[in-house]
Each structure stands twice: as structure tokens, then as C-alpha cells.
């Protein structure tokens, strides 16, 4: 369900790919594959306290800026493949969007992909914290 979200065709096809998975282990396998496909990775040497995501059990970092055309770019890196995979998909989803649109997105694409059971806030795996951080950065970039 796209709802009020502006989901790119790329993201919609990723959601469909996940929905076609046979079971949760296959979904995780696909997520591990996406972990290797981050379009704009943040290498570990650029990880620092200012781009660290708090509240994540693994190490996770994001850095957001605008390209020369004023479009959003999410750079990210995490040591856990599940977090890195979600970051990759999020980057595919938001890269190239206007920062205003990014700030209005909701994180329900993860639910649509069938990953909600591993994404509750108490699991502390950082997806929701990462998503909120991206939105905060997007809001700042609008200003």
C-alpha cells in the first residue's frame, strides 16, 4: 500500500520481490543480498560519533546530504547485515527524492516487505531509529 507515500518504482519492485519470497529465511537471505548493494555506502573509516545511530544493538551510521541538483542522498553503513540491508533499501527508496518528500515518508515499506516481526522498537535493531534519523536529516536539509 503506497498510501500517502511517494514510493519510487525501484522501491515498489523491491517490495514485490520480498512478497514473492517463500518464507522468512528467504526474506532474510534477500536482505543479506541487498546489504551488499548499497548504492551510496558509508565506509567504516567515515563512521564517527556524529553520524552514529543511537539505540541500535549493532554499529550503524548514516550521513545525509543533497547532490548538485538538490536531491537527497543517503549514505549508510552497519556491521549487521540485516541493518545494512534495510539501509540499502532505504537508500534506494530515498536517493534522488526531494528532501521534503523524504521527511514525509513513513517506514511502512519494511512492513510491506514482510519484515515487521523483526523490526519492533524493542528489538533494538535500529531500523526505526535509522529511519527517524534520516527524516530528521531530511527536515534539516529542507531548511
Amino acid at each position, binding site marked *: 500500500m503506497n498510501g500517502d507515500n511517494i514510493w519510487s518504482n525501484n522501491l515498489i519492485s523491491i517490495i514485490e520481490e520480498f512478497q514473492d519470497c517463500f518464507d522468512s*529465511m528467504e526474506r*532474510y*537471505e534477500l536482505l543479506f543480498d541487498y546489504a551488499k548493494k548499497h548504492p551510496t555506502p558509508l565506509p567504516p573509516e567515515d563512521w564517527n560519533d556524529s553520524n552514529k545511530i543511537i539505540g541500535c*544493538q*549493532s*554499529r550503524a551510521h548514516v550521513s545525509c546530504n543533497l547532490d548538485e541538483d538538490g536531491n537527497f542522498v543517503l549514505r549508510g553503513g552497519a556491521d*549487521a*547485515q*540485516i541493518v545494512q540491508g534495510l539501509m540499502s533499501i532505504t537508500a534506494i527508496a530515498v536517493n534522488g527524492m526531494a528532501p521534503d518528500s523524504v521527511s514525509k515518508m513513513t517506514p511502512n515499506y519494511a512492513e510491506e516487505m514482510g519484515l515487521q*516481526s523483526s523490526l519492533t522498537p524493542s528489538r533494538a535493531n535500529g531500523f526505526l531509529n535509522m529511519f527517524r534519523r534520516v527524516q530528521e536529516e531530511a527536515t534539516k536539509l529542507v531548511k
Partner: protein
Amino acid sequence: MQIRSDFPILERKLPNGKQLVYFDNAATSQKPRCVITAMSDFYEQYNSNAHRANHTLADEATTALEEARVNIANFFGTSPNQLIYTSGATEAINLVAFSWARANLSKDDIVVLTEMEHHADIVPWQQLSKEIGIEVRYVPIDIETFKLDMEAFSIAIIDASLVCVVHTSNVLGVRNPVEEIIQLSHSVGAKVLLDCAQSAPHEKINFDILGADFIAISAHKMAGPTGIGCLLVKENIMEEMAPFMTGGSMIKTVTTKGSTFQDGHALFETGTPRIAEAIGWGAAVEWLNQFDMADINSHVHNIASWTAKEMRKIPGIVIYGNPEESDSSGAVSFLHESIQSLDMALLLDEGGFAVRTGHHCAQPLMDALNVPSTNRASFWVYNTMEEAKSFIEHLRYIVERFT
């Protein structure tokens, strides 16, 4: 199997349809039906405040609270007068820091800890150091054997006033040589505080024979409810403790000119007691009384030992601790060289296996091991070899599929 049928939760299926296999017992144990019933009976039949009124319900509640104290104290080989109810081991250790240490230690005193301690047995002493300037010393572990460096221990305790040691490590499952630790510490005039949160579910703690000055215990790791535990204190040392919290229950008289206080454990149990929780814990020790604790230890050790042996055959798995050794309890901490611990935990959860992931509230130990976190499977009386076998099978499947 009779034991398993006492625990309704073990029948539960997870939302993905998988049968729960609960291997997070070092975090908290599950509760037998008799504990749940004892607590609900209290609320349904005789809920009332204790030590306050003369009506029937108040009398029944007070009697049940104090009967539980007797049963729990007996279970730990001591008298009910030596048992102070607390919220758990953390509050028990803080009680020593606030009530005994603040009254008896000053700037020149030394408190000895180990690198194996849980944060609950580190932070109170760091805070006390900030407040009154005590010196805190840490005994290292040998990272080859995962055991305390007893040579360093013997040196660290020189001139110490208090030695605080975890009985069994919540991360490594290693049982420290507490008898030797108590003897050495007392020989230099230091008091000894043992954190028995992990050992109490696995072995017989006999407070009076063991000879420690203080022992901290949590109920919830040994079939009891959360929110209750105790500090066991030697009689002559309880007299050296000043009240930690003040208010109702701990007083004899209060006038506008001042107050007089109760003696013994009542001095440290301020406010309405944890009545239902104490009753639940009493029921838990009664349930445990059907076993020889040595049999529980042997059962848990056999599962942990077999699991560790099988895990070592899986490529890339590294185990922290020596679960195969006889002085280890039921925890197997491990990492896979290429599957991050958070990933491993979620993949195990998909198979129905509940294990702990993280630093286990023991960051200095993680630093000593040079890892940020581990996965930990921990076992108890109701776990079976069949569960361990299915765990190894699923772990092997994860490693094959995700590396």
C-alpha cells in the same frame, strides 16, 4: 515430562508457527504454574498490606510474607533474620554500597572487583569512588582460560576492605573459586560480597557454611517472579549497616522531634513490602526443593557441554568460556566470524530459539575479550537434549545458508 508440564509457556508457539525453545535462562527463567497460582491466589483471596493491620486478610498476608522468608532463608542455608528482601540482586548490591560501605568505608579504603562483574556490581562502586574517594581495583581474567587470574587477585586484595565477586559469570558460565576467594579475602581482613544471581538457580548456596559476608540474589532467575530478590547478611555485619531508605515500616516511633528505628532486616525494608512477589518466590523455592540442586547443575552442564562441543564443529563459531569444564554452568557465549551477533539472534529467533545478544551488562568483560557483544544460549532445568539438538541443527543451517 513432568518438569516441562509445570511451565505453561514452554508449550507456546511463536507468531511464525515455530515452537518456542527458550535458551535465555541466564536473563530470566520461566515460572512454574505453582508460582503463578500462588501469586494470583494472594490477589484473589487475601490481598492486604502486611505488618500493619489486625484484620484477617492482613494477618494472612503477613503470615504468608514471613513464611516465604523462612522458606527462602532455609533454601539458602541461613536464618530468616539474615535475609533482607530487595527488588533483586542489583538492589541488594546497592544496599551494601549505600548501607554498609557508606557507613564503614572512607577515602583510603579499597574495594576489589573483577573484570567478570555485571554492571550491577561495578557502577555502585564507581559511584562510591566518585562520592567518597575509595579506590576500586579490578582483577583481570586470563583470556586464554576465561578464568580469574588468582595470582593478580592475591595481590589486588592486599589492604582491601571489601571484595566483590560474581559467583558464576553471566557471560562465560565460569564458576569462580569462591571458597578460596572468601578464605583469602578474610585472611587480609576484607569483607566479601558475592553476586549469586547466576549461581543460585544452578547450585546449592549455603550462606552460613560458605562464609561470605553478603550474598546478592534475584528470584526471577530461579523460577520466582521479577521484582524481588534478597541480600543475605551475616548477623554481626547487619548491625554495622545504616538505613538506606527511610519511611514507613522501618521505624519504631516517629514524633515531630525525631524517629526511632526497627532492628534487623526490618530496618532495610521500607514501605509496603513486595508481598505477592515474596509469596511467589516462596512457592518457587518449594518447587525447587523437589530437586537435588546438584542434579540441576549436572543436567544443565550436560546440555551446555554437549552444545558447546557440537558448536565447535561448525565452521566459524568461536566460544567464549569453557562450557565443557566441570566448573562451568549453563551458559554458552559464542560468535560466528562472519555473521554479526544481531543477525545471528534474529535468524535463530526465526527458528523459534530465544537467545540473548549484546554485551550482557558486562562491558568491561567484553573489552577484555575484545568483542562488542556475544550471542548466549543459556539452559535450565526444563531444557532438553532434544532442544539442544534442534538448536545445533538450526545453527548449522544458518551458517550454511548465510555464509
